């Protein structure tokens, strides 16, 4: 049988996942996983070269086909998904070495890759939902691999993302009703009326997956509870790629999306709020991984803001930012994992002066941190500039300002993190540390190299990966010229630079106030009068709607228990069960084991049958 090449990215991980179960030695499993991810990566690379392909197999019928479609944009996404997978797997060979459940870990990783590749390639909403839902389960299982508390976080993520997926499902059903088709590439609608509701529902699914507010709460918890490779793998890279991929697809292809339409305002608001609030939370964190996880939320805001602007520059910036973010955030998580591996902790208070003993990790961290802060000439600078320009073009200056505020605190918090972990005085609380071995370092080095490359030659990734997203929109392409407003000397870029200076100032001030202790650098902001109360409330999870929801549900369930459940239980206990028991008792007594009895039933049954048949035939005439 001829297997279409489009099936490879889905089938290969499945094969590797299943075969991995039969391997005994840990070493072998590691090699197997690296080999597997490399194979899938190669496959994705080949597909990236092909660019155009499609495959339709009959599946459930009724317009629900096994429909895969490859075009420029999702080929790029597919490639990047598998690049990150490969790097994370390579890194995991060292990082997960001590884990006893390594077999399960790789099983879920490969299943995740399968589902991710499937949802990227799917061109039918039902098929897409199938893969998308699979990701939910593998995420749950992967978080479960963490420490003892992880089941709670896993449940939280399952419920929050389950909610998002449910919205997505509703949106798809609605869309199906409106458009009458489930083929993603065949739908093209104006985002008005019912279609707008459908768009908003699907959008919730997309940004929820990407981790925007208010669906972000599980990410900081998972940063503590789940293995760090899982964090680098899913929330940092794959989920962003997939979430933003879906958002891009629905806002560019499925729905016609106008600048300053209501939908656009909603998206931009969500983006801006996410940027500001998440970065504020990130600023005061004292744990490196938790800090990173809040940034993972905050940066999603930029992408959503960028796409939400509806201007060509903003959209391209948003998508580019997604790619950049995946690169540097994965790099950051990996470096935090590297620190954890060497020092045994990620709490900033305990760390310090690691630069000398871990130069490569420190260097990679610095590059990634500068990128995320948007410092010239790293890649974060380019995409952020595009988003600033895009949001400025919409005329709503407030969103641009929010983005700038985000930039200030981002830089400030990374100055704090870098200062307290890698620079500054050497900590006495941890033993002597050593640099890690090459499988840990190589992924970080590669990612940092990408940071620099994409910053300097920004035209390269834009041409290769990003612009295909806009392939159906020639009018947008015509507008885009990448020379005029990416130069350093224009007002917006200058303001951004100013922001960085402010951030530096803030940090300097904070360190001074904290008697030279860098991890206290954010305390001045933390201690501002009103903000302090808000922070306290946030730390106590008052804003965490999941926790509040759980409380509310507990209350509700108590009320229902006493008013509805008990009365029904009474009826059930006293009426249904007793009658049931009597009937069963009678039936059992009737089966008394006597042959004549059984025979008489059969004969009586025959006579009754004959009689009934006779009367029925008579009635029919």
């Amino acid at each position, binding site marked *: 049988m001829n297997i279409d090449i489009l099936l490879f990215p889905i089938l290969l991980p499945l094969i590797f996942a299943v075969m991995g179960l039969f391997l005994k030695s840990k070493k072998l499993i590691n090699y197997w996983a690296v080999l597997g991810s490399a194979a899938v990566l190669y496959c994705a690379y080949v597909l990236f070269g092909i660019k155009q392909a499609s495959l339709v197999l009959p599946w459930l019928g009724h317009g629900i086909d096994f429909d895969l479609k490859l075009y420029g944009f999702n080929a790029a996404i597919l490639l990047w998904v598998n690049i990150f997978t490969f790097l994370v797997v390579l890194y995991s060979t060292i990082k997960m070495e001590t884990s006893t459940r390594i077999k399960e870990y790789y099983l879920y990783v490969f299943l995740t890759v399968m589902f991710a590749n499937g949802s990227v390639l799917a061109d039918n909403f039902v098929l897409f939902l199938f893969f998308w839902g699979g990701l939910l389960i593998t995420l749950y299982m992967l978080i479960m691999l963490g420490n003892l508390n992880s089941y709670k976080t896993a449940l939280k993520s399952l419920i929050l993302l389950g909610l998002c997926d449910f919205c997505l499902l509703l949106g798809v059903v609605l869309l199906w009703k409106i458009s009458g088709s489930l083929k993603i590439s065949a739908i093209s609608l104006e985002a008005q009326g019912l279609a707008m509701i459908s768009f908003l529902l699907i959008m919730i699914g997309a940004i929820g997956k990407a981790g925007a507010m208010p669906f972000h709460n599980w990410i900081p918890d998972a940063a503590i509870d789940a293995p760090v490779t899982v964090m680098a793998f899913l929330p940092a890279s794959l989920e962003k790629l997939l979430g933003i991929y879906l958002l891009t697809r629905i806002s560019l292809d499925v729905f016609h999306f106008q600048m300053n339409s209501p939908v656009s305002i909603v998206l931009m608001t969500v983006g801006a709020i996410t940027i500001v609030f998440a970065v504020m939370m990130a600023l005061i964190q004292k744990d490196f991984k938790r800090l990173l996880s809040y940034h993972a939320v905050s940066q999603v805001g930029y992408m959503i803001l960028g796409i939400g602007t509806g201007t060509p520059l903003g959209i391209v910036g948003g998508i580019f930012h997604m790619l950049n973010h995946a690169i540097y955030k994965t790099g950051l998580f990996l470096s935090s994992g590297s620190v954890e591996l060497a020092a045994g902790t990620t709490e900033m208070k305990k760390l310090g002066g690691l630069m000398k003993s871990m130069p490569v990790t420190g260097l990679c961290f610095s590059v990634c941190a500068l990128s995320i802060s948007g410092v010239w000439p790293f890649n974060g600078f380019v995409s952020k500039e595009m988003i600033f320009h895009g949001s400025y073009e919409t005329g709503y200056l407030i969103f641009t300002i929010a983005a700038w505020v985000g930039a200030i605190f981002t830089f400030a918090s990374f100055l704090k993190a870098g200062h307290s972990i890698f620079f500054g005085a050497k900590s006495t609380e941890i033993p002597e540390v050593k640099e890690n071995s090459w499988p840990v370092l190589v992924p970080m080095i590669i990612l940092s190299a990408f940071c620099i490359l994409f910053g300097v030659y920004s035209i390269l990734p834009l041409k290769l990966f990003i612009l295909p997203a806009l392939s159906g929109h020639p009018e947008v392409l015509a507008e885009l010229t990448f020379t005029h407003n990416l130069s350093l000397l224009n007002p917006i870029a200058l303001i951004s630079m100013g922001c960085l200076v402010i951030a530096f100032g803030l940090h300097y001030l904070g360190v001074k106030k904290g008697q030279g202790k860098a991890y206290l650098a954010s305390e001045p902001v933390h201690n501002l009068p009103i903000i302090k109360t808000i922070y306290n409330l946030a730390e106590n999870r008052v804003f965490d709607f999941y926790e509040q929801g759980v409380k509310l549900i507990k209350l509700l369930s108590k009320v229902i228990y006493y008013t509805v459940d008990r009365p029904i239980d009474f009826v059930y206990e006293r009426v249904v069960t007793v009658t049931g028991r009597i009937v069963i008792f009678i039936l059992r007594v009737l089966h008394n084991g006597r042959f004549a009895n*059984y025979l008489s039933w*059969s004969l009586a049954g025959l006579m009754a*049958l*004959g009689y009934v*048949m*006779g009367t029925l*035939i008579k009635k029919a005439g």
Partner: protein
Amino acid sequence: MVILFIILPLIIAGLLPLLGKVSKKVLPDFLANAVFALLLGYSFNFAWNASAGKTILSQVNLAGIPLGITLRLDALSLLMLFTIALVSLGVGIFSVNYINQEKYSSKPIYYSLLLLTVAGMNGIVLSNDLFGIYVFLEIAAIASYALAAYGLGKEELEGSFKYLMLSVVATSFILLGISMIFALTGTVELNGIASVLAYSKAIKIKYLIGICSALFIMGFGLKSAIVPFHSWMPDAYSKAPATLPAMSSGIMVKAAGLYVLIRLFYNVFGITPAVQTVLMYLGVISIVVGALLALGQNNLQRLLAYSSISQIGYMVVGFAIGTPLGFIGALFHMFNHGIFKSLLFLNSGSIENATGTRELDELGGLAKKMPVTAGTNIVASLATAGVPPLNGFWSKLIIIIALVQAKFYIFALIGILASVVTLWYFLIIQRRAFFGKLNETWKDVKEAPFWMSLSSIMLALICIILGIAFPWFIRLWIEPAANVLVAGIIR
């Protein structure tokens, strides 16, 4: 060579006791399972023909001389052949270890009997002749009486005797029906009967056909354990070796009972509202009575027997609706039930092999000691109870949708409620046998041996895979079979 389906098991069954002198264990194991596997593979040979809706009426030749054997192979018979081969392969693999128990022994004879049941069922399914159906039904039945009492215990003999005597009455009535048909039409071939009856519209003929229908419903209904003709089933199953109920409830009840009923009523006599109504009520009564009786049982196999009665009720109801969707649901449920119910019986065999008992009171906490058995049992239980996304869910769902479409709302409701009861008693099994406190007696219990586990896992995998891949399965196997029934009277 359609006749191979009958000849091959028959020849091997005849040879095995002779060859058994040479090798007592390995050769019978190998030969019997090879036959089952061969039949399974061979049934695929016809799949494309049958799914295209073709009917093969094959006249058998011996060295160029035509013999008086005409076999009918259409999609419906093919589905049955496939099910029979699949389940018997599972049972055969299971027997490799299971029949080594001290009380069973004599593998060659055992496998001969197993092969004879398969030959009998294949004969029923392929026969184009009412009397041929009867003869092959007796082959399967006689072999299964011997299997039911294979352990030669007191209670096994008792169950087997009751089974035999009630079946004798049933087959006598079937034969009376056949001779009435013969007296009316002058032939016993299915096409012949159908074409003669198609032209006789006199009211008296209708009455006579009604009497025949009653006789057939009673006779084949007893074979398929429809309430109130079900009473042999729990008795014959309670103590029998687990493979017999797996075979019997899994496929024999369907091939020897339901299949013949639907073949006769839909393809030969032509369905009438009277028959539909009668079958519908019998089915619903079976569902309810079986489910309720299963609730109060202590013997695992007896419980499963009542559960089978309840599930067969679903199939009868599905067939009685008479809409294409009903046929699809019922046929799919028929296949599924063959898989998961034989798996459940085999699980009870594993438990008995390990602990020596089937009484739920004496078991407990076996999941830790027997993970494969427990795992496969959970899959099969959930599939029987109709929990998504296992195969049983889809087939029950289709039947219930068909009921709703045909406006039998109350019956649909009863079907749903009964499946809740089903889930309930399967949870009771899980709690009392596999979970809960480990009974100290079973400290040293071991997992079932390799072949037994293999067979359980194979069947459980089918349950899971079909739960996901059911659309393909329905398209390839079920829909053509349903079309045979939809097409009505054969020519």
